[in-house]
């Protein structure tokens, strides 16, 4: 997974003095990730965690002093696009936005700038990228996965934790887990992650975790058909929710999406993917 993060990555945190950024910077430190510092405009020159991590005003200052090449973004939604654009311009290679629910038009601007850059964006609304035992660039719970040869890619963060936990309970290890995020406009997609896993020598099998809304699973299916030779197992939740029982009454950030009524699993099946109907099917399929 050296394309996204590796043991050599120098990870920084944008928004390191905020409530969430600070907490998770410490969690990452505790899990042994190579975290080198962070930004918090106006607090440059301060230190976090008893002098362990330096704080800078800008991303470029942080890069100059720490050689940061991966940034995990925790700043609130109104400032997230600005933070991502700052990281792109400063030359951060992998930008991981934990913050989600970013205004759509902000993301349109980010995506158009991203297109002409060498940066990769993971998220927004991503749990991060996890290389068990090597690096946790994000908010994955501590000790959630063992090191191994299964690559995991998921739209939902919590569902990714569920799957990692199930794999761990069954003694199955993971090469990398990538949360691509569940916002309407995201950076890296299923296809790019599948491509990474396909060429990663430490990954033998792939687990893809999907859900209702959008057609990213359908696109993943056609990509798998054409380009993926490693075995893929898919777990798609909410596939068969009847529209009649889901009354999307109200929600702040979008409503429950209607289920694809089996279309996604069908497309994946046709691409040669094995389907897990419940969580516990995943370890069984991986071991068979």
């Amino acid at each position: 997974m050296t394309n996204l993060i590796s043991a050599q990555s120098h990870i920084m945190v944008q928004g390191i003095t905020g409530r969430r950024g600070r907490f998770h910077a410490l969690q990452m430190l505790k899990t042994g990730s190579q975290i080198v510092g962070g930004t918090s405009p106006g607090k440059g020159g301060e230190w976090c965690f008893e002098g362990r991590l330096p704080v800078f005003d800008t991303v470029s200052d942080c890069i100059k002093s720490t050689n940061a090449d991966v940034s995990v973004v925790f700043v609130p939604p109104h400032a997230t696009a600005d933070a991502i654009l700052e990281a792109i311009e400063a030359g951060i290679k992998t930008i991981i936005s934990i913050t989600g629910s970013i205004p759509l038009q902000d993301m349109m601007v980010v995506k158009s700038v991203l297109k002409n850059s060498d940066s990769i964006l993971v998220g927004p609304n991503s749990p991060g990228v996890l290389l068990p035992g090597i690096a946790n660039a994000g908010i994955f719970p501590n000790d959630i996965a063992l090191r191994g040869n299964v690559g995991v890619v998921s739209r939902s963060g919590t569902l990714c934790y569920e799957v990692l936990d199930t794999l761990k309970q069954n003694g199955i290890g993971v090469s990398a887990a990538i949360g691509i995020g569940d916002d309407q406009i995201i950076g890296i997609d299923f296809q790019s992650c599948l491509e990474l896993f396909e060429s990663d020598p430490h990954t033998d099998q792939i687990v893809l975790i999907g859900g209702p809304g959008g057609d990213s699973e359908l696109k993943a299916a056609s990509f798998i058909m054409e380009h993926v030779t490693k075995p893929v197992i898919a777990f798609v939740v909410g596939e068969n929710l009847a529209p009649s029982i889901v009354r999307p009454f109200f929600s702040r950030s979008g409503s429950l999406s209607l289920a694809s009524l089996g279309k996604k699993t069908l497309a994946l099946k046709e691409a040669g993917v094995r389907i897990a109907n419940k969580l516990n099917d995943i370890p069984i399929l991986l071991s068979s």
Partner: protein
Amino acid sequence: MKLQEYQAKSILKSAGIPLPASTLATNAVQVKRIAAEIGYPVVLKAQTLESGRGSAGGVRIVHNEREIENISNEIFKVIINRHPVQFILVEKALTFMDEFYLAVISDLENSTPILRISEAGGATFLESSSFEDALVVDRPIDINTGLKDYQIREAITKMGIDPQLWKQFQLIAHKAYEVYRQYDATLVELNSLVLTEQNQVFVLDARISIDSQSLFRQESFADAFDPTYFGWEERQALKYYVDYHIFPGEVGCIVNGMGLAYLTLDQLLSLNTLPAAMIDIRGGATSTSTASSLEMLLLNPRVKVVLINIFGGMTRCDEAANGFLQALNRGLPRKPIFIRLEGTNGDSGLDLLHNNENMSFFGTTEALVNATAGWLRGEEL
């Protein structure tokens, strides 16, 4: 978030888009007074966010003062999709020679706004068969450089629109895009644009949707939610920044994240059990919002049992647990609570709760859902 027609039109009017005169009324007497000011014929349009307004009898043309009060009262009695009509927009009726469609829509696939123009306007545009037949031109707009004159020209020349009208079309397209940007819209739809006998272009009907993720900087819309649509629970959900979904069952669910919501829902359904409500506290919830979520479920008479399924990443289980304890100390109705806390600070969260006699604890989603469904069927724990 959809805006009502009158809200959309007031935004478009202040942006300088030509619209027929219109005013909002709340009763038949007001309708009559406004119609006299505007001049007959007028169109009376029920204001609703539901579709099917026309077929429900919510739009009527009135030609003279004799019929106006009767027709208004008939419209105020119309129920559209369970929602009674509370407001009527009284609008000058125009005669026109041609109809068009113009919209700025959001292409999420390619992360770009799109200018869409069609020669077919009005209700016919929305019927899919004619949509396929009609000439529709889509032009992606570079969000960093904005909508360009030539893009509009390329679209309208394909429609065979008289060059004398180009200026009017260009003005309207630019204004529509300005509204889209200024108000963080996901959709600005002018359907239809009409051409009058005087060769003037007007917007007859319009829809605007605002990106609910931008409400923090679009404060004027924070109160634009129609209060008739939202009960106490929905307003609480809005206040505490949680997602709230209503179902016809008996289990009140609290989860973090949509993926876990669907997983829980799938497992409940596989046991023929339905939620009464599904609350997604989202990532990094505070104790205030978890307290409020539990309070909503304990107060909801349809909720017989509460199911809490939290796998914390950014959500800290101890903080969530603190919120649940706060809610339990508010003297609310007591209900059995089936709970699973896993992930970030999971152990300290469980330590806070373990003395609580209303709660039963589980290690996995499957065990949690099985026990909840079993309890509803009358099984002993």
